[in-house]
């Protein structure tokens, strides 16, 4: 097993999930409660990575981050180096790639919060922010947890986007999935098998955890409401 690649993947997944919790929470809130007529368009955009081939996303990201795009140039000007083939570039790409895995479960959980409770809070003069923190979040924490765990796991398993944007640099952008690919090509089946088995067990544990929580919630009053 390649511990360096495992560490890179864990770092990437932690960073991505952390960014997604910050970016994803307001977005999920908006998706759950907005009355805009064009909301479905935003929902479609958020869900795009579910159906888009990773190579398409990877290609666009590479072009967008590259030195020929204004965005890429702007970043290079501010930070001093470009985004492609860096760890930061991978975080940006993974954030987009794993977005639906955060937003969908969280928005679904927000929707299941009893509307009466939210309105009661408002009529009692509690601000929207406090209502969110003290009424909505406590009632949908399993959704938040699912959003975090799923985006984490999804990032660990990502391959196509990382291959295109990351450039397979050991210790920086070589993730576990790419390491397995390399090991198979080098005919190191034993190492590939060990890492693969590790990922299989990890994925199974993660999903068991998520569905386990889902069951507990359904047994009570609320459902976690996955929409896949």
């Amino acid at each position, binding site marked *: 097993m390649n*511990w360096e690649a495992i560490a890179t993947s864990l770092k990437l997944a932690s960073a991505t999930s952390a960014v997604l919790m910050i970016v994803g929470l307001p977005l999920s809130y908006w998706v759950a409660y907005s009355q805009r007529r064009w909301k479905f368009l935003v929902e479609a955009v958020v869900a795009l990575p579910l159906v888009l081939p990773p190579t398409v996303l990877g290609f666009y990201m590479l072009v967008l981050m590259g030195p020929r795009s204004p965005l890429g140039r702007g970043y290079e000007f501010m930070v001093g180096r*470009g985004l492609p083939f860096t760890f930061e570039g991978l975080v940006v790409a993974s954030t987009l790639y794993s977005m639906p895995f955060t937003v969908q479960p969280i928005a679904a959980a927000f929707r299941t919060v009893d509307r009466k409770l939210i309105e009661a809070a408002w009529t009692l003069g509690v601000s929207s922010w406090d209502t969110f923190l003290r009424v909505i979040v406590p009632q949908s924490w399993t959704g938040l947890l699912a959003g975090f765990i799923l985006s984490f796991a999804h990032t660990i398993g990502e391959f196509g986007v990382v291959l295109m944007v990351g450039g397979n640099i050991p210790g920086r952008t070589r993730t576990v999935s790419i390491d397995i690919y390399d090991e198979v090509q080098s005919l190191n089946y034993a190492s590939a098998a060990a890492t693969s088995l590790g990922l299989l067990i990890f994925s199974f544990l993660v999903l068991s955890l998520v569905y386990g929580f889902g069951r507990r919630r359904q047994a009570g009053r609320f459902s976690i409401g996955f929409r896949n």
Partner: protein
Amino acid sequence: MNFRAALWFALTFLGAIPAHAAEIRVAAASDLNFAIKEIIAGFEKKTGHTVSLTPGSSGNLSNQIVQGAPFQVFLAAGREYAQQLEKAGRTEPGSVFIYGTGRIVVWTPRNSPIDIDKLGMESLLHPSVKTIAIANPEHAPYGRAAVAAMEKTNVYARVKSKIVLGESVSQAAQFVQSGAADIGVIALSLASSDPMKQAGRYWLIPASMHPPLEQAAILLKGSSSAARSFHEWMRSPEAVAILKRYGFQ
């Protein structure tokens, strides 16, 4: 950011982020997959530097370098990539040298009914062959050499529909080594590796049947002195001896 600090601590604790004095980032065409590991081991032992290796097809690696991938030394399976990168202003002027010439072989798994020593290139026409693995000619020089040899011997048109393309020559080798493909045209340097030798046999394709596969060692712009010494190491007696053992001439 306590969480981040904790994470870093945990990862360091696992020994996952070793600190290195001089790290040299090397991109290498995947025909070197086995030879380069021995070469790097010798270099690291002698100098104390660390080499991080990124394998791939020459075309893909070259594209990444043009787009700014932070490699310092590029070992390409074709001289044309050196020219390409020179034109793009990514090489240290005058640094390119040829460290060897690659050869290609017809490779069959151990249990194959094909007598490759007798049939040579005609092996590809054997009735038991359903799939033929080669590297993708679009970005792998070994794929282009394989196609050239098949064309030269007039088998290409007849087997074209049976060809499966590996992303690089090492993936083509993996396809046929694992038995997923019945026969392959791959690099001699891969066929000379232990796992390939154990799994099958090969027939060396005469060098006259394809354009020479000149292997270029390229020092990329902005390289450290440690990177320079690795680049130079590719023509040291130690490295040359290893390359020879893997069939480079």
